[in-house]
């Protein structure tokens, strides 16, 4: 099984662990993900707020590259926001010939053209669940996650609004639950499974964002989850990196690690935590992983040399 691969900006760095673990897992499953050469940012949730046609053109450049590089007519995106933007652009270009014409006129300035409908964009989870299948995944499990209480967290954009077709119920999805059960984990009921992680609200209104994160943490804690498992780098970032801030803000003391589903898959397949990028979380995953007998080395994963805290460098500013 060969697919084009669009990692998206997050997976380059802030969610490198997602990329790392995804690569390890797909290799085990016999999936070939070939990265699209020279892809660009999808614009996240920001570009559509500012200027519509450039926003579509930005996304469409990726579709055109995927189309032209001929890796596969299917393109896998592990990030839900990228997945949404790519499917949305393809869908709207298909529905509106005017939009398609305009976008293509813009693309022509870069010598590109995209025929809507050529590239089928898929989320990594959906590929694993539908193309590989639960049975094939089950066959690879060598170290089942027995005893680990998992809250399967989908977030929004993988299930809503379904520009790329309905993959799972937009209100009460279950695919990730099933996958986690296949890995041997105990999946807790998690009513807020498809609620929003706060998205970019962390940058706009922390109070609002923190409340949204709190709800999710509380719900997972209420059901005594050991770990929250996610399918999106934004969700992971918000729930993990902001967990201390949320605790501070509300006076709570949640310590629920947030891992990518590929990391748990990797563990179940017997991969080492390090090769899955475990150890990069803000909220320590070790207590949770202890339950399934996965020991993390005491030293953290190798990383860049640290800089003195006080010397936080300012990046070079662009002219405008």
């Amino acid at each position, binding site marked *: 099984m060969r697919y084009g691969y669009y990692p998206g900006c997050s997976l380059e760095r802030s969610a490198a662990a997602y990329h790392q673990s995804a690569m390890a897992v797909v290799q085990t499953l016999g999936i070939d993900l070939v990265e699209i050469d020279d892809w660009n940012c999808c614009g996240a949730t920001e570009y559509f707020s500012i200027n519509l046609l450039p926003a579509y053109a930005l996304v469409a450049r990726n579709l055109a590259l995927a189309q032209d590089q001929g890796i596969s007519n299917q393109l896998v995106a592990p990030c839900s926001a990228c997945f949404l933007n790519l499917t949305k652009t393809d869908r709207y270009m298909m529905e509106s010939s005017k939009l398609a014409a305009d976008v293509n006129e813009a693309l022509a300035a870069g010598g590109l053209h995209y025929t809507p409908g050529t590239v089928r964009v898929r989320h990594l989870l959906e590929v694993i669940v539908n193309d590989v299948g639960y049975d094939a995944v089950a066959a690879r499990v060598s170290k089942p996650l027995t005893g680990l209480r998992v809250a399967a967290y989908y977030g929004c954009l993988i299930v809503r609004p379904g520009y790329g077709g309905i993959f799972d119920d937009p209100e009460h999805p279950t695919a990730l639950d099933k996958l986690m059960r296949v890995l041997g984990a105990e999946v807790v009921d998690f009513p*807020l499974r498809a609620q929003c992680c706060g998205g970019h609200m962390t940058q706009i209104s922390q109070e609002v964002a923190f409340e949204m994160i709190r709800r999710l943490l509380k719900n997972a804690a*209420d059901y005594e989850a050991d770990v929250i498992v996610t399918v999106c780098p934004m969700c992971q970032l918000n729930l993990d990196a902001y967990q201390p801030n949320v605790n501070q803000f509300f006076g709570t003391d949640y310590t629920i690690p947030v891992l990518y589903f590929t990391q748990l898959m990797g563990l179940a397949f017997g991969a080492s935590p390090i090769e899955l990028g475990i150890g990069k979380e803000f909220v320590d995953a070790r207590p949770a992983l202890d339950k399934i007998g996965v020991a993390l080395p005491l030293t953290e994963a190798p990383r860049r040399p640290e800089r003195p805290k006080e010397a936080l460098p300012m990046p070079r500013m662009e002219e405008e």
Partner: protein
Amino acid sequence: MNEERIGVYVCHCGSNIAGTVAVEEVAQWAAKLPNVVVSRDYKFMCSSLGQELVEKDIKELGLTRVVVAACSPHMHERTFRATCERAGLNPFLFEMANIRELDSWATDDRAAATQKAKAMVSAAVRRVVYHQPLQLLPVKINPNTLIVGGGVAGITAALEIANAGYHVYLVEREPSIGGHMAQLDKTFPTLDCSACILTPKMVDVAQNKNITLLSWSQVEAVEGYVGNFTVTVRKKARYVNEEKCTGCGICIEKCPKKVIDEVFEAGLGYRKAIYRPFPQAVPKYPVIDTSNCIFFQRGKCKACQMFCPTDAIDFEQQDQILKLEVGNIILAIGYDTFDPRRIPQYGYGRLANVFTSLEFERMVNAAGPTGGRIVLRDGVTTPKSVAIIHCVGSRDKNYNEHCSRICCMYSLKFSHLLHERLPDAQVYEFYIDIRATAKRYEEFYHRVLEEGTRFIRGRVAEVTDAARMPGEEGKLIVQYEDTLIGKQRRLPVDMVILSLGMEARRDSREVAQIFGLGCEYNGFFIERHPKLDPVNTMTEGIQIAGACQGPMAIPEAVAQGAAAAARVLSLISQGTVMMEPVRAHIDADKCSGCRICNNLCPYNAIVFHEDRKVSEVITALCQGCGACVAACPSAAITGAHFTDEQVMAQIEGMLWDVQPQFAMTSMETR
């Protein structure tokens, strides 16, 4: 080309047509068309003076064809056909050009409208030349009637017809008649006890000599046409001999197998494997549910047989296939309630204390599973707060776009019943609009307001058990926007009731296919006219009544049942019915027996004679759609009043002004 003498009449319709179309000009222009001997315009052609004009011309000028350019043929085609007939001209030698609805009312552009009117008149003139005199077809009416569905609509219709002295076959799929109404506790707004008013009617059905009640039965096929239908009914095996059974109920008592009753008790209660849906069931005979019966599943038990005092249990019983001859059919197959599992955010099936409206009906019913006690799913706890959510599965393009019409009122009824039984409980009604539009409905709404129910305008976004704030723990939290204050809010309650909308029966499309009816996009049957002919269908001889036509409350269903019965009685009393002669006919000399047409007819009106190798249209069965006419590759099938040459001539006429490019070849075959 022929000797026909055509009269053309262009109607002003006051200013309705003349305001946009230059009618005088059209009339003068039409006078020059081939075969036209007189062409007039007149203020109101449909007035008696206008009609007299036509009659006079037919008689005095010897017209052999008439064209009236006026309104839609659906409006006045019959009028002018009658006009022709009065003057001694066969009514089918008339053609109408619709220059009002399709022309003057659809544009402001006078020049274009006039040009279009000319095209339509020209088309009618060319077409009418090829018209042939036709006769209406008389059909005898069999006085027996089939009624499908034993809910309140079907029961009403059956009693009306039976009481008029004619025989009725009442077919009901469930073991008992009664329908949804038998499940209800009280009926709004009068709060009559549903069983008290329905049961006597059910008993009347059982006792009426003119009614053959076929419960636990289904119609499998319908053949024939108005006046002469042959209906195949499968009478499923009950495994209880109706001749011997006294309905004592000992078998039910002794049956060891308890089953959740998904039908009558809406899943809230239990029944046995041999059962009667409810004590007052009509007929009184129980049925064995073989998929749950221990004997049928494992070959042992027979407790019912052992205890039956009249030896009525018969495990060997087989389904019976009955052939019924009837003249008319009334479909009253009712509705289904929306399945709320389709809206996961309301939590039905996941959250124990979310109930459906039908569950609540059974719960408040004194004869229901809780004996009328209102409790949570644990069967013990009394709720202190109840939220009733309106429009579940209704007014929602994701599910059903239509308003189900009854939910507002039964929700109000629930509020009232909750107040009556649990005076301490707080009741909330979440609504988009309160639709209380029939007699005494608005008054009932006011009464419920006065009783202290809190009305919150806002469609509920979700019901969850995920507590967010103190006070929410252990409750169901209803999240919504109170649209009257424009704020998002959350309300913790003990119980949620989902007011389910009405849907067409899940198998309504299959039923429609058996009976040759049309369904709307949402599965409800299409009536002949939504206002003027609501119980008739496009298929002659088949009426519809009750909620299979669209969402409606009991009084309307009863009225429709009676209306359908009146329709049937009127046909029976006429003895014969005259039918439009728009029918297909196969010229046996031209038919090559290729059998292309054989399975095209939705009414099975085409038969193939294996001996002569030709197909034939049974005129009485044909409805005149023309599908076979168009398909016949030998031009052996003609469709009366819509023949190839008529339509071809009409096309030529329509395009009289736009043939700039070619001349005709004189050598063409026609």
